């Protein structure tokens, strides 16, 4: 593993969309799912996200991401169906357990929300190279130093992981026991993490110096090796999403009254 990423390299129109627009799409998705509790609208937005994922040829990569939350989503139905404080109308029962309509409806709403947000995030994550995303944000005013930190994490973590095996072998050969009673295993944790921490902290010293020797703290305005042109299509998409966000907020405010 050279770099941590869920990015799938494909040549589709979705991949070419400005990363900022995909971030705006996430924001819009969160806003809509939090402000609107309408099954039809939430289903519609979910279908739309799936459509975009399909155009980006990454639809089958979404399911592993959803599966992270699958168990919680299932237990939500059970717990809300049984115990939601608003439960009144019994829907069905399994043995002595009675499931109520209000709880089940509420749990389905939660699931729709989570799926909407997961799919919107997946659109960004699966179709955008992390380094492109970060460089794009730096061009738009994110501090270059924070941009550096974000980009370097993606490659430095796999580098640190490669030292894990070395540490494990070294400590085991010195007689460290990593099996047995809980207290024994707990005690084994410090000899394992300790050297990893020391290694990584000591390397921060040299890395910081090396960065300083390459203008990391320069006050000059940063330039970019790679060119970047925003298309009129990207602008159009951006205005559309912003309009959608404003419309949702206004609609919600009017609707509440």
């Amino acid at each position, binding site marked *: 593993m050279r770099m941590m990423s869920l990015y799938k390299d494909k040549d589709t129109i979705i991949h070419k969309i400005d990363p900022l627009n995909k971030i705006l799409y996430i924001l819009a998705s969160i806003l809509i799912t939090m402000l609107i509790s309408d099954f039809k609208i939430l289903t519609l937005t979910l279908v739309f996200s799936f459509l975009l994922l399909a155009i980006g040829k990454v639809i089958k990569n979404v399911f592993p991401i959803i599966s992270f939350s699958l168990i919680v989503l299932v237990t939500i139905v059970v717990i809300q169906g049984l115990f939601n404080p608003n439960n009144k109308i019994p829907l069905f029962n399994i043995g002595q357990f009675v499931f109520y309509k209000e709880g089940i409806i509420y749990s389905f709403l939660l699931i729709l929300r989570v799926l909407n947000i997961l799919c919107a995030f997946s659109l960004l994550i699966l179709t955008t190279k992390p380094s492109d995303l970060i460089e794009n944000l730096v061009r738009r005013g994110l501090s270059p130093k924070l941009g550096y930190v974000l980009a370097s994490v993606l490659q430095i973590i796999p580098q*640190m992981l490669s030292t894990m095996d070395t540490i494990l072998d070294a400590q085991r050969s010195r007689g460290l026991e990593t099996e047995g009673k809980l207290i024994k295993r*707990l005690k084994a944790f410090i000899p394992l993490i300790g050297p990893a921490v020391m290694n990584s902290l000591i390397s921060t010293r040299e890395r910081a110096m090396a960065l300083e020797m390459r203008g990391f703290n320069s006050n000059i305005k940063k330039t970019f090796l790679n060119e970047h042109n925003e298309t009129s299509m990207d602008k159009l998409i951006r205005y559309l999403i912003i309009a959608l966000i404003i419309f949702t907020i206004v609609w919600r405010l009017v609707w509440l009254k």
Partner: protein
Amino acid sequence: MSKKLWSFKFSTASLVLIPAAVGINYIGKLFAGLLKLPLWLDSIGTMLASMLAGPIIGALSGAINNIIYGLTMDPISFVYAITSIAIGITVGILMYRGLIKNIYLAILSGIIVALVAAIVSTPINIAFWGGQTGNIWGDALFASLMAKKFPMWLASFLDEFVVDLPDKVASLVISFLIYKGLPKSLINLYSSDDEIERL
């Protein structure tokens, strides 16, 4: 530890501490899994960053930790960035106030961190999961409290707190023990208030 507690002028050393902290979080999580410990131990890097370079760097480490997890594994991790930020800030302040001096105070501080983490996480858990955490033991408690007609926010808070308490106490104690073993020159590297004295 920086005297300028809330400074946003970061030294290069404290900035490169952030990727290291995120890596330590991740390695902590993997070692905990390897040893089959019933804890996550995935905030040790954030806590050490707070102890070494103050609450802002700690908070940044926490936020970036969750952003990276969100980008590379589970998008839900993004929303819990707020919890990680709270952990970073809390540990930074406790350290600055001199409250993490010995192992007993580290345990006490761990309890405070767990409280803060649970308070911050509860609204997120309610909005996303109807109050659950996804942890079997915590959710079992949540279900039984809900059955006894406890208010949802309280049941959800306790669900998160019983899960966080052992994890955050253990994490902070481990961070404290590692911190104690670091060479002075390394601890001094991340403080930004040294002045050059003329000889």
